[in-house]
């Protein structure tokens, strides 16, 4: 397996730490003039999404993680797995609920997602930054109340619940930012 030395550390590098694939977010070189050099590193665990800090003695090596990110089209779910297709070679893969994380609640079908594969297996899925979905359940819209800042919960066709302005009606199609889970606006017809 390939190894990376600390002097190759940079943001985005994929390494194996405690058996889990991780991505380096930030690498800081710390060295007393007359002392041991360290690399103080912020790392995201790609399986859990958690960010941790680690310190390495400079010159140490770590194992590289075979991690690739590919754009794939979401097809359907059977309740246990979510199926994606590589639009270039039509290969299909199945992602578990763990790998899907929060992504599942934004997807209805045909979206192009970023699927992170570790040793060929999907470990995480990032939905498109913006999705357009129909509201299936919300309190009736309040006419004429477009100025006041109030909001109410709305359930979308995928089951996700987002806060929408009071004037939005049941059945409307809205645009949502999946990174924040926030309502962006009405989707244009």
């Amino acid at each position, binding site marked *: 397996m390939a190894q990376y030395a600390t002097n190759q550390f940079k943001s985005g590098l994929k390494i194996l730490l405690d058996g889990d694939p991780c991505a380096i977010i930030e690498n800081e*070189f710390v060295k007393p*003039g*007359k*002392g041991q*050099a*360290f690399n103080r590193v912020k790392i995201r665990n790609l399986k859990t999404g958690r960010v941790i*800090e680690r*310190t390495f003695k400079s010159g140490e090596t*770590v194992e590289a993680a075979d991690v690739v990110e590919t754009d794939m089209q979401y097809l359907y779910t059977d309740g246990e797995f979510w199926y994606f297709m590589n639009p270039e070679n039509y290969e299909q893969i199945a992602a578990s609920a763990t790998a899907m994380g929060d992504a599942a609640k934004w997807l209805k079908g045909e979206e192009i997602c970023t699927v992170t594969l570790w040793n060929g297996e999907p470990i995480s899925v990032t939905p498109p930054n913006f999705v357009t979905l129909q509201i299936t359940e919300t309190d009736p819209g309040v006419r004429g109340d477009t100025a006041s800042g109030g909001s109410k919960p709305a359930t979308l066709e995928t089951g996700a619940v987002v806060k929408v302005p009071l004037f939005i009606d049941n059945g409307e199609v809205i645009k949502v930012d999946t990174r924040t889970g926030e309502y962006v606006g009405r989707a244009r017809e």
Partner: protein
Amino acid sequence: MNPDLDWRPGAGREALAQRAGLYRRLRRFMDQRGILEVETPMLSRGGATDRHLHSLACAQPDGSRRWLHTSPEFPMKRLLAAGSGAIYQICRVFREGERGRLHNPEFTLLEWYRPGFDHHLLMDELEELLAELRPGWRCSRVTYAGVFRERLDLDPHEAQVEVLREAARIAGLRVERLEGDRDDWLDLLFSHCIAPTLGRGGPCLVHDYPASQAALARVRPGTPPVAERFELFIEGMEIANGFHELTDAAEQERRFLEDNRRRGEAGLPAMPPDHRLLAALEAGLPDCAGVAVGLDRLLMALHGHRHIDQVLAFPWERA
């Protein structure tokens, strides 16, 4: 990096002018005190034996190698032994592999030596220099032990590795494969937990280091014995390192051998020590103190630059 733009400098015109202005003021300060400006070779047959310094080699046509200096310390001490009196030098030095927000493998040192001074007298003079560069800068002084007691509630001269390891754990530090070397643990705690907090309200001088970290300083006997060494911190950055210099040739030779033994343990090649320095010490180095000031970081501290690249005309990747 964008190849179309990497011909451009890291430092802006203003930062270039700040550097030129700093050098002018430094030279005036030294000149007013009768400290002589000197130049010494950058390429030498001997190299730095310190296991934490990595010298860059320069191959010679005859197959031999010379080493780019990591500091001008040895030849400057040879000048002192030859009776130069107080001397200073502003020069580029080279340390392989040191790169980051506060590091460039090629950087600039101001180094000066004062015969007849001990480390406290030289700290006084460094304070006077800083006050001249930034009126209102007043230095605080703490001992290495004092700052460890204050920040981490432990005695760095006595604490066993287990105690240091526990202190790191409590501070939330997770370290990969750091083993039993006490000084490595002290370096970890000092560089991660203490140094970033030093010099926030004005420059801070830390002195009296553990004897095991004496480098080229003399060790003052006592309980515990301490190295007569100091460092200057401003805004969490280590800016300078000084010694009440070791003048004992036999002790210097012992340290060279010990350095190379530890290099061997760490899997590093032994470095050829500077035998001419030993000969100079043998002939007699006057009692003196010396200090090396990192001018790139001093510029950062003086003018609020966040990254060393902002004060370098061409940082490593564009050099």
